């Protein structure tokens, strides 16, 4: 916080202890990689307009590779997970208070668009650009 200097000086020793606790918990988690789930990464998902039975109104494309992000954002947040600095802080705070503060979220960090060509009810044709439809990269936020 940019404000609240009083609060920062007040009870100064307590946060230091809790951060130390968090770091110990981080070390413990890092020492037990076997129990950790799969890390945050991009998974394949192809949306097929043909398989959805929409060929009578969607002219193009036949479908598109959408992808999605899934996996755990837990320490060690290595470069593969493309974690932000905020994600690292979020993980620390989660260790301090795991019941109320969630872990960082595995979510898209890069998104791209597609365009879809389709008929409307009046047989007019619409070409629409949809932004942020395709996951390019995932990361921990």
């Amino acid at each position, binding site marked *: 916080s940019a404000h609240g200097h009083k609060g920062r000086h007040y009870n100064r020793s307590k946060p230091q202890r809790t951060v130390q606790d968090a770091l110990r918990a981080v070390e413990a988690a890092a020492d037990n990689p076997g129990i950790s789930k799969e890390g945050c990464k991009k998974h394949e998902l192809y949306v097929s307009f043909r398989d959805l039975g929409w060929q009578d109104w969607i002219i193009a494309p036949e479908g598109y590779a959408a992808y999605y992000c899934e996996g755990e954002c837990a320490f060690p947040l290595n470069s593969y997970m493309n974690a932000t600095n905020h994600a690292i802080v979020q993980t620390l705070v989660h260790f301090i208070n795991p019941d109320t503060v969630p872990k960082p979220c595995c979510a898209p960090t890069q998104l791209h668009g597609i365009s879809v060509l389709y008929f409307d*009810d009046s*047989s007019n044709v619409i070409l629409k650009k949809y932004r942020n439809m395709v996951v390019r990269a995932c990361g921990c936020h």
Partner: protein
Amino acid sequence: NFSVDNEVRSSFIQRRLRSQERREMQREILSILGLPHRPRPHVHTKHNAAPMFMLDLYNTISTGPEPSGFSYYKPVLPSQVSPMVTPQDSRFLDDADMVMSFVNLVDQDQDLLYLQHRREFRFDLSRIPEGEAVTAAEFRIYKDLIQKSYDNETFIVSVYQVLQESPNSEVELLLLEQREVWAAEEGWLAFDLTATGNLWLGNPEQNLGLHLVLEDRHGQRTNPRVAGLVTGSRPQDKQPFMVAFFRANEVRFRSIR
């Protein structure tokens, strides 16, 4: 980047969806596409002029580098005459969030209309979502080659916006564009409708359509077919249509379901 991921068909592991899953997936994708329901077009031939032109535009966006390991699905255009996308259309496309083609609602194939020297065209712009502004619009009509004509024979094609019409009085018209065409010319003629399109979008009650008038070199009004103008629905790949390029004024959020 609208080019790379379009038309990608990967060798993803496939699983057949159960009926319920399929319905849910359809609902989700419709929501992502911003559609309240699945469109049910009464005519869905892709060989009409407007869908072919739109497919040309789509392919203009979709031609990009192909990432390795992916096979591409490319819609194949029929081999008939295709409404060519001009460099100007490509520029309009770059600025647009949405492009829409409109079919002519006036039945030009009625025999009685062939007696008249003007043609009427109407397009329904009433279903455009709010917040979309027309950045460019064109009326497109095909001109066939006239075989039996003098080399230097020319015609004047005039496109008018209908301002007012009532059964008891003359139709009030506003000249939008006038163009001289050679009898030997062949191809698509595009008339600018940008201002008219914006007017019709904001004031649907003023959308009374267009009139096309053809005059020969002596100033005599004549049937547009004499100059090779295709005003009817045949051939289907040469039907006249309107195309409009839209840009969203505001960020639209999907409603929470």
